[in-house]
C-alpha cells in the first residue's frame, strides 16, 4: 500500500468524525430508546453515515469493519456504499490507486459484510432485502450478494429457515427473467439424472455465471436447492443422505409429529396452513394450537441455545419442561432479559458469570477501576421495542469490566431517578488508597435528573482540587436521536463512548488513542483491511 493521502488540513476534521463515528457505530441500534422512537433513531444514524461518507468514502467502511460495530450501523454503511457507484464519492484518506485498483475497496466491503454476518445471518439477509427496496442491483452488489448466499456452508438449513427471504433476494439479484431461465434449466437438469451439467453452451454459461461460480458443490445439489427456494420442488427427490434437513421438511409437509430437525417457526408455518393434512386435527381450535405448539417446542432439536433461553417464558407458558444448558448460551441479552422477566435463578447467575469470564478483555489497559452503574428507570429502554436492553447492556458490561480488571469497585445509583453525582462521590469514598483507581467508568444513558450538569460539577471540582488525571469514561448503552445518534454527554470532564456489547469496549478505548496519532491509527486500519482474507467468491474456478 502507498502512504495515506490524508492532508494535515483534513486530519482535524477526520479525527473528530472518526471519534464520533466509532461512538455511533458501537451504540447505534434501530430499536427505540426510553425516549426515542425507532424512526428517529434510524434517521439520526443515516444522517451520520452520510456525513462520514461525504468527508471521505473510506471512513464509514473502516468504522464498520471494527469489532463491536452494531449490526444496524454496518448494515446502513453497506447500504449507503452499495447505493453509490463503485467510483463515486471522494477518496481522501487512501490513495485511489490502492482503493480501486488494488482491491482495497472490495476488501473493506467484504470485511464489513463479514462483520455484519457475525451479528447473525438475518442481519445480512435484511440488508439484501433493503437493497431490493432501494432498487440497488449494480454489478458489484450482485456479485457480493450471490457470493455470500451461495457461499454459505449451511445453505440447506438456511434455505429451509429463510426460504422466502432468500428467494426474494435471489429474484431481485438475478432479475425475473434470469430467475425463470435458471429454474427452467434446473428442472431440466434434475430430470437428466447425471452429475454433470448438460445443456447448450449458452445455458452452461448462464448457470456457471449465476450459480456455480459461487457455489461449493455439484450442480445438481445447487439446482435442487434453487428449486426448493422458489417452491418448484414438487416431484424433486431430496434423499436423506444428500439432504438430511430438506428430506425431513418434505415429511413435515404431511406429518409434523415426529419431526426433529426442522425449525419451530417453519413447522408452525406449515401446520397453520389450511392445506396441511393435519390442520383440522392440530390447528383448527385454540386448544389444538396450544397443544401443537407445546409438542413442537418439545420435539424440535435445532433451536439454538440462545433462542431457547429467549423462549424461557413462553416455554413455561406452554407447560413444556425443557432443560436448557444455560452455560452454552452466548447471547448475554437473552440471559439478562430472561432474568429480568422471570427471575435470576442460581443457574442463570452462574451462566452470566461464566459468559462474562469468557468475554473479558484480555490485556485490559486498566488494573484498578471504579464503576458507577445507573440503575434508574430510563435504563429500561422503550416499553414496546427494547424493554430492558440498555439495562442488560450496562449490567453485563459492568460484569465484564469487573472480570477484565484486577480490582474493581462498583456503586449503583440508589433512587429511581438518575443521581450519578452522589454515586460518583460514593465511589470515590470506596477507593482503596493503597490501590487507587486507574480509570472510572460510568455506565449510564446520560439522562441526569437531579439536575442536568450536577455530575459534571462534581467531577470538575474533584479534578481541579486533586489534580487527578485519571480518565473517566461514560459508557452509554444507547445513542440518542437528539444528539445526532451520538451519546448524551454528562459533561466536559468525561470521555463518552457508546457500546452495545462489551466486545466494543476495547476497540473504543483504543480508539481514544487515535487522538494522539490519528494518521497512524488510520494507516493500521487500512493495513488490516489489506491483509483481510476475504474474497467475493469462496470458489475461484469451476470445472464444468
Amino acid at each position, binding site marked *: 500500500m502507498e502512504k495515506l493521502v490524508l492532508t494535515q488540513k483534513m486530519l482535524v476534521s477526520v479525527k473528530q468524525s472518526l471519534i464520533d463515528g466509532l461512538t455511533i457505530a458501537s451504540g447505534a441500534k434501530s430499536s427505540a430508546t*426510553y*425516549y*426515542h422512537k425507532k424512526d*428517529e433513531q434510524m434517521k439520526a444514524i443515516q444522517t451520520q453515515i452520510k456525513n462520514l461518507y461525504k468527508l471521505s468514502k473510506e471512513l464509514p467502511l473502516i468504522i464498520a469493519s471494527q469489532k463491536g460495530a452494531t449490526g444496524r450501523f454496518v448494515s446502513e454503511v453497506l447500504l449507503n456504499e452499495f447505493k453509490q457507484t463503485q467510483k463515486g464519492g471522494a477518496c481522501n484518506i487512501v490513495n485511489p490507486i490502492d482503493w480501486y485498483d488494488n482491491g482495497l475497496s472490495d476488501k473493506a466491503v467484504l470485511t464489513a459484510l463479514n462483520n455484519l454476518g457475525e451479528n447473525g445471518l438475518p442481519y445480512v439477509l435484511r440488508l439484501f432485502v433493503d437493497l431490493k427496496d432501494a432498487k440497488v442491483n449494480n454489478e458489484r452488489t450482485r456479485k457480493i450478494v450471490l457470493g455470500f448466499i451461495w457461499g454459505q456452508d449451511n445453505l440447506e438449513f438456511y434455505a429451509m429457515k429463510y426460504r422466502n427471504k432468500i428467494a426474494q433476494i435471489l429474484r431481485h439479484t438475478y432479475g425475473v427473467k434470469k430467475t425463470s431461465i435458471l429454474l427452467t434449466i434446473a428442472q431440466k437438469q434434475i430430470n437428466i439424472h447425471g452429475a454433470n451439467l448438460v445443456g447448450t453452451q449458452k445455458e452452461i454459461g448462464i448457470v456457471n455465471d449465476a450459480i456455480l461460480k459461487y457455489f461449493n458443490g455439484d450442480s445438481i445439489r445447487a439446482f435442487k436447492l434453487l428449486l426448493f427456494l422458489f417452491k418448484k420442488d414438487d416431484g424433486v427427490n431430496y434423499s436423506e443422505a444428500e439432504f438430511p434437513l430438506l428430506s425431513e421438511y418434505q415429511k413435515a409437509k404431511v406429518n409434523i409429529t415426529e419431526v426433529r430437525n426442522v425449525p419451530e417457526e417453519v413447522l408452525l408455518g406449515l401446520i397453520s396452513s389450511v392445506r396441511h393434512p393435519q390442520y383440522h386435527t392440530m390447528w383448527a381450535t385454540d386448544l389444538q394450537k396450544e397443544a401443537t405448539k407445546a409438542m413442537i417446542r418439545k420435539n424440535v432439536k435445532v433451536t439454538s441455545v440462545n433462542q431457547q433461553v429467549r423462549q424461557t417464558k413462553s416455554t413455561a407458558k406452554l407447560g413444556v419442561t425443557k432443560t436448557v444448558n444455560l452455560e452454552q448460551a452466548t447471547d448475554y441479552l437473552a440471559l439478562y432479559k430472561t432474568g429480568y422477566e422471570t427471575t435470576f435463578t442460581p443457574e442463570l447467575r452462574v451462566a452470566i458469570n461464566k459468559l462474562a469470564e469468557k468475554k473479558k478483555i484480555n490485556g485490559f489497559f486498566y488494573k484498578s477501576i471504579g464503576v458507577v452503574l445507573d440503575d*434508574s*428507570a*430510563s435504563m429500561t429502554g422503550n416499553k414496546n421495542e427494547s424493554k430492558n436492553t440498555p439495562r442488560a447492556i450496562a449490567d453485563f458490561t459492568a460484569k465484564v469490566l469487573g472480570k477484565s480488571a484486577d480490582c474493581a469497585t462498583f456503586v449503583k445509583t*440508589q*433512587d*429511581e*431517578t*438518575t*443521581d450519578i*453525582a*452522589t454515586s460518583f*462521590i460514593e465511589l*470515590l*469514598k470506596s*477507593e482503596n488508597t493503597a490501590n487507587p483507581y486507574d480509570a472510572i467508568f460510568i455506565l449510564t444513558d446520560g*439522562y441526569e*435528573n*437531579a*439536575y*442536568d*450538569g*450536577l455530575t459534571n*460539577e*462534581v467531577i470538575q*471540582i*474533584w479534578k481541579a*482540587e*486533586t489534580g487527578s488525571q485519571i480518565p473517566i469514561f461514560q459508557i452509554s448503552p444507547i445513542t*440518542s436521536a*437528539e444528539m445526532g445518534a451520538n451519546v*448524551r454527554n454528562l459533561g466536559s470532564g468525561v470521555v463518552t463512548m457508546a457500546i452495545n456489547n462489551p466486545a466494543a469496549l476495547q476497540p473504543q478505548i483504543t480508539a481514544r488513542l487515535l487522538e494522539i496519532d490519528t494518521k497512524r491509527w488510520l494507516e493500521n486500519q487500512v493495513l488490516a483491511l489489506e491483509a483481510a482474507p476475504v474474497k467475493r467468491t469462496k470458489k475461484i474456478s469451476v470445472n464444468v
Partner: protein
Amino acid sequence: MNTRDFTELLKGCRPVKDRDGNIIVQSIMNMQIVCLTTDKEYSLDSRFANPLTSLTSGNRSYGQISFTNKENKEVILPAQMAVMTKQSAQNHGMVKAGYVEPKAQTTYHDAGCVQGGQTGYFRGTQEFRMIPVTMREMLFDAVGKTSGHGNIYPAIQKLGQDTQSGAGNYLDVYFNKYDKKLEQFIAHFERPKNLIGIIVLIDGEIVAVDKFPSFTYAEQVWDLMIRDCYGALAIISELKHKSNMNEFTQAYEDLKRSHRENIVDLLERAMKRAKEKVTASVQEKIQELLDLTFDATLDTEGQPSGARVPKSYVLKTEGYVGQVITENEFNHLVSVVKRDRFDPNALRDLNELRKKARKQERFGL
C-alpha cells in the same frame, strides 16, 4: 359555594424523597418538578380506565366535545385535554377535567376551538394531547361559559407570544414548531414508581400542582403531561435564556472556606448541603401554599349529575385557580395553577400578617 383548603386537596400525598430524607427534585434550566406519592390504599388503580385509550371523542357543533366511554369502568378526563385530529375537522380543547360514567357518553358545551379557520366536525377519534400548562389559568376561568366557541383562543394567542411560535388561534402551530423539542424534553424527567402527583416550580416558585386518581393513571398520562403540558414552561425558559442552578458548586465553595477536611468528604458534605438546601427551598414553597383556602364552585356543565358520581368543583383563590374532582371528600383529581400575574411575595406578606394576627392577644383591659 364552599371552601377547600390546600392541605385537604392533597391529603394523603407526600413528596418522593431519597434515602436521606431529602425531597427528590428533578430539574431542567429554571424548571423543577417534585413528584408526589401516596400509600397504596389511596391509589384507586382498578377503579378508573385509561383516559387515553378508553374514550373516543366527537362533536356536532363548534365549542363542544362529546366523550364516549367504551369501557365498563369510569373514566376521569385529565385537566384540559385537546383533540388534535388528522380528520378534516376543527381541533377542539377542554377547559377543565371531566368525568365519564362506564359505557356512557358525556358532552361538554364549554369546550373551545383550538384551530381558528378550520371547519368540520370530528368523530370517533382518540387523537388526544394536553393543553400547555401556561394556558391553564385562562381556561379554568372559562369553565361553564357555553356561549360561542372561542373560549380558548385568547389563551392560544398568549401562548403564541410567550413561546414566539406565532400560534394565533392555532394550537397545532405551536405543537408543530416545538414537537421535536418537546419530545427531547421528556428525556429530562423520570417517573418514579407509585407516582400520584406532580408539583412544578419555575424559578423556585410553585406554578402548577396535579394530583391523579391512581399510580396507574399517573403512568398513563405522564408522557403527555411532561411533553405537552409542562413542556411549554421549559420552552419559555429556554427563550428567556434561563440556566441551570449550580447549587453544588456554591455549597462546595461555602464549605471550602470553613473546612479543611479530605476532599472527598468535602464533596460529600457539599452534596448533602446542596440537597438539603434544595429540599428546604421546596419545602418552604409548599409550606406557603398550605395556608391557602380556595373558594369551590360546583361545576355542572357536562358533568354527570347522578347522586353517586364524583363532583367537579372549580377552585379559586388569590393567585391560584384550579379544579378538583371529588367524591365523599376523597379527591380523585386535583389540578391547580398559579395565576401568571400573581406575585407569590404578596402571599408571603399576607401569610406573615395572618401569623402575626394569630399571635396577637384579644383586646382586654
